[in-house]
């Protein structure tokens, strides 16, 4: 996905970026209603009426409606050359000071060859001191403020929102309490009775069960449909092509 260096003071550690979030749902394929053939996502040129392969695709900035200025990867990397290959920790902070509102998207950093020891040291030291690293880092069109966090011996990197992106919540909360004290006590008792340890797996399991139950039910109601056999060609197209397209879409459309 990305590789470069994470640094603090005079220590530099070669790392690569690894995703920390995936689509966990039992996955479904999109099919053609008429022949049940699986569908593949392609980039389509409306002028040529053809599918366009990843090596023929460039990024473009819309200058005026329908007129685009192509921007190359080299040009993008050139905009902030100090930050496009380096995650430089500016300060260490108490993670408790970061309002969770700021957390955006998490990644992991994995050490590259030769960086394993310094990586281990940074993870262990941040764990001991209960600190996180604050860094700025550029990927494609955006500069990210990130928190580098020690997590189970690994380094996680969470992108943060800028304070300018946080909307005001002033005036939304009521000024006065309205409940009788007996009712408030009852609410407090409810909360205390419902206190538990955070166990996120159980919600994922519940959802999975629900999907499996539904699939079982569907199995009884209907027979599976069969997709037409393809000659030679794989329905998804060459795997690396699909992966490359998805990569580009992710970078351009969503987050880095």
């Amino acid at each position, binding site marked *: 996905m990305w590789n470069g260096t994470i640094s603090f003071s005079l220590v530099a550690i070669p790392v690569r970026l690894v995703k920390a979030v995936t689509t966990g749902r039992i996955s479904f394929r999109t099919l053609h209603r008429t022949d049940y053939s699986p569908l593949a996502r392609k980039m389509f040129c409306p002028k*040529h009426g053809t599918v366009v392969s990843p090596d023929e695709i460039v990024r473009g900035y*819309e200058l005026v409606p329908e007129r685009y200025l192509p921007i190359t990867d080299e040009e993008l990397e050139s905009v902030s050359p100090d930050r496009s290959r380096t995650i430089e920790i500016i300060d260490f902070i108490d993670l408790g000071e970061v309002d*969770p509102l700021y957390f955006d998207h998490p990644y992991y950093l994995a050490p590259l060859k030769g960086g394993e*020891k310094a990586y281990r040291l940074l993870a262990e*030291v941040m764990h001991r001191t209960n600190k996180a690293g604050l860094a700025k880092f550029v990927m494609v069109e955006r500069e990210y403020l990130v928190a580098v966090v020690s997590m189970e011996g690994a380094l996680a990197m969470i992108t943060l929102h800028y304070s300018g992106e946080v909307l005001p919540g002033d005036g939304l909360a009521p000024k006065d309490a309205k409940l009788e004290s007996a009712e408030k006590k009852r609410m407090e008792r409810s909360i205390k009775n419902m206190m*538990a340890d955070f166990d996120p797996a159980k919600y994922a399991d519940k959802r999975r069960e629900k*999907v499996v139950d539904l699939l079982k039910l569907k199995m009884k109601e209907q027979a599976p449909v069969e997709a037409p056999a393809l000659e030679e060609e794989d329905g998804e197209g060459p795997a690396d092509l699909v992966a490359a397209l998805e990569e580009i879409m992710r970078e351009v459309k969503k987050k880095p």
Partner: protein
Amino acid sequence: MPSGTIWKGSIHFGDTDVPVKLHSAVKQERIQFHLLHQSDQVRLHQQMFCAYEKIPVPSEDQIKGFEVEEGKYLIVDPEELELTTPESSRMIEVHEFVKSAQISPLYLDHTYYLEPDSDLKAPGYSELAELLQVMNAAGICTWTMRKRSYLGALQASGTLLRLCTMRYADEVISAASLELQEIAVSEKELKIGSDLVNQLTAPFEPYKFVDEHQQRLQKLINKKARGEKVVLLRPRTLQPTPPDGLLQALEASLKKAA
């Protein structure tokens, strides 16, 4: 001014019901790129193609299937899967309360501010916020909004209640999957490293940071649009600290920080 109401629902647990309105807490603005066909600079569209007929398939002709064995699919309407609680109930059901600190930031997704829905007389809002604040607690809840089911954490920030959507556990990859090898780091290196981290600690002041890259990127775009030449700069790369030079680098860093 807070942004407009996104959705209305009611927080429910025990015999408590607090009707609320959701408002966005974060808004992102960034330079947008599109994908172009290199040869003619026409903007490309994403399209689903039928692998068999080799034709583009519009969304109304797309259905979802679960692959039971190779090439055989069970047709499923994904909306059936999403509805955990009927959307019409508008219930944000709290299943349990946990200590806020137990929720790993990897789970947190998108935050909404909650406003009491005054059309529906909403007593209990202030009290709930105060209790969650004092107890450092968060309510783990589920609800169905716009045909999608959500898992979330109900938390207080001062007198304001907030709802943060959470990722499901099977969407969060565990750090163990990185398969990091155990590497010995000396106590001395850890001690100096800790001292260094403490030396370099500062308060978190997010307002100090803006996206400087976007401003520079906009300049590059303007320059290129005027037909001026853009000078390409090579990204800076740092020389990795060698494992046997780590202690020395830490000592030098500490000296520099002092």
